[in-house]
């Protein structure tokens, strides 16, 4: 009479498969997130040129970061302040600037794609951060070195809280969640 003592061995394989599949899924998911960190913008606006080469201060365009919860996205008028005169040095630049001129001519807003966002239940406010001397780069990275802005900080809760604690800021939940 055969004795099947080793049947349990066969049950290991499916378990491994399940774990493996979930690991693959996680990796793929992460890769997808990473792609979304650098979204394609309607105009290929180069922070590297404006901030890196031209040294325009952040607050020139993001005009309300020091007074409001919103940093402020520059209206087309702000762009046109220079681009009425600056047409671009290369063909590629000229094409992109032409797009801008198109928006300006139609008086429509440029539909920028948001790079840095927090969930709806997080009440982030730029003003106190700017006032406390947190530099823009600490959260947004060195945008002067980026062609297209990508998200460098994880913007996770642990990341926020760690910085808050390091700087002696409040780690009370109701500072951000209400």
């Amino acid at each position, binding site marked *: 009479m055969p004795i099947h003592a080793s049947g349990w*061995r066969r049950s290991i394989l499916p378990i491994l498969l399940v774990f493996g599949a979930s690991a693959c899924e996680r990796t793929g998911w992460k890769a997808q997130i990473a792609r979304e960190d650098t979204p394609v913008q309607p105009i290929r606006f180069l922070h590297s040129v404006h901030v890196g080469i031209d040294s325009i201060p952040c607050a020139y365009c993001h005009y309300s970061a020091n007074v409001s919860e919103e940093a402020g996205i520059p209206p087309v008028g702000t762009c046109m302040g220079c681009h009425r005169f600056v047409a671009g040095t290369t063909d590629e630049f000229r094409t992109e600037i032409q797009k801008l001129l198109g928006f300006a001519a139609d008086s429509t807003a440029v539909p920028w794609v948001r790079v840095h966002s927090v969930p709806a239940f997080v009440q982030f406010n730029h003003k106190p951060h700017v006032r406390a001397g947190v530099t823009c780069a600490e959260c947004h990275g060195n945008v002067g070195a980026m062609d297209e802005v990508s998200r460098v900080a994880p913007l996770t809760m642990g990341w926020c809280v760690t910085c808050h604690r390091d700087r002696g800021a409040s780690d009370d939940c109701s500072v951000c969640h209400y």
Partner: protein
Amino acid sequence: MTDITSLRSGRAQAGVFRRVNRDVLATLQRPGVGWAAMMAIVLTVLGIGVIAEIYQIKVGLGVAGYVPPIMWAVYITNFVFWVGIAHSGTLISAILFLFRAQFRTAVYRISETMTVFAVMTAGLFPLIHLGRVWYFYYLVPYPNERLLWPNFRSPLVWDFFAISTYFTISSVFLYVGLIPDIAAARDRAQTRFRQKLYGALSLGWQGTDSQWRHYNRAYLFLAGLATPLVLSVHSVVSWDFAMAIVPGWHSTIFAPYFVAGAIFSGVAMVITLVVPLRKAFRLQDYIDEYHLDRLAKLLLLTSSIVFYAYLVEVWTAWYSGSPYERAIFWDRAFGQYAWASWIMYGCNCIIPLVLWFKRVRTSWFWMFIVSIFVNIGMWFERFVIIIQSLAHEFVPYQWDYYNPTWVEMAITAGSFAWFLMWFLLFIKFLPSMAIAELKELLPPRLKRQKKEMETA
């Protein structure tokens, strides 16, 4: 140096042993039509319950009948009910093991599987009842990106620990007990599927002296650990209520009162399950009136404790002078929920009084009836404690009345189906009586038979 008597008695014993094997393993034969029909019904009901749950997750908990301030209702009632059911299993398998109560041998496997499946059923309800079940892992203490931990002051976290420990220990306990019997099934398996199944599950058990030595020791320790555990789990469940300030909940007697109630309801459920099972599998020789009588006495004892607890509750409320407590118990007896309260008092205190009669205690029919009433009564006990207390709390502006909806009823029915599904699977695929232990401690009828064979 073998004398003829010992040889004869050895033969007799082997014959009885073979019979035990044959009778118990006969339950594992190919499922019949009856079993399949039952399974079909059970799966249908379960399917309806699953659909109701999916609907509830999609639309929101509002599809259940909750009426603030009654924020806990039938789901928590079911949770406590099923946890309670679980308890008698461990009582019979662990506590009575420690007490060497021999009548447990025949029924402990059934009660133990009942424990495991009841905990599996109970464990669903805290999830079903969550507003955002998809975030249930917030209750699990693990290092996470948010740097947050659960609140160990909350009785719900205690509950999480207690229930998961209880589930782990009782399933391990069940499985460890099963191993030698699975090995026996393996050695008699007819089909390839069963050979493989039992081969895998028996882990290569051979019943050698050293295996038995470690096994017996570990079994003892598991029983020893499960004994305080079983008392603690329902105490912790009772603290979900007793730690709150809700009048009708905030009471020091809740822990012992709940434990007694749990065993009471669990024993009733064992009887409810054993009566038809014995008949279906022709196990009359193994489970007889002797067992029934013992179980009935246990039922009577716990019923008396529960009765006493009810009286003490009322007395405490009156003697405390707290207007809220008094109002709750007045309302319990004469208010909107009086119908539920009197079902509870009737089924849990009055009906079990018939168990004082031996004729009832040894009647399969009457015991089955009584056990059904006790099951109903104990479900309503939880219903009354939870819902009626919440309905008449401190602020009279927020007094209200609750009715369950079809979703709650479907999920409740589904939970019974879920429990029965596992139970039906179990009795067809695993030995529902402890073969090895039955051989060690023969039930009275088998003993008689053995005697007869020896003298023959």
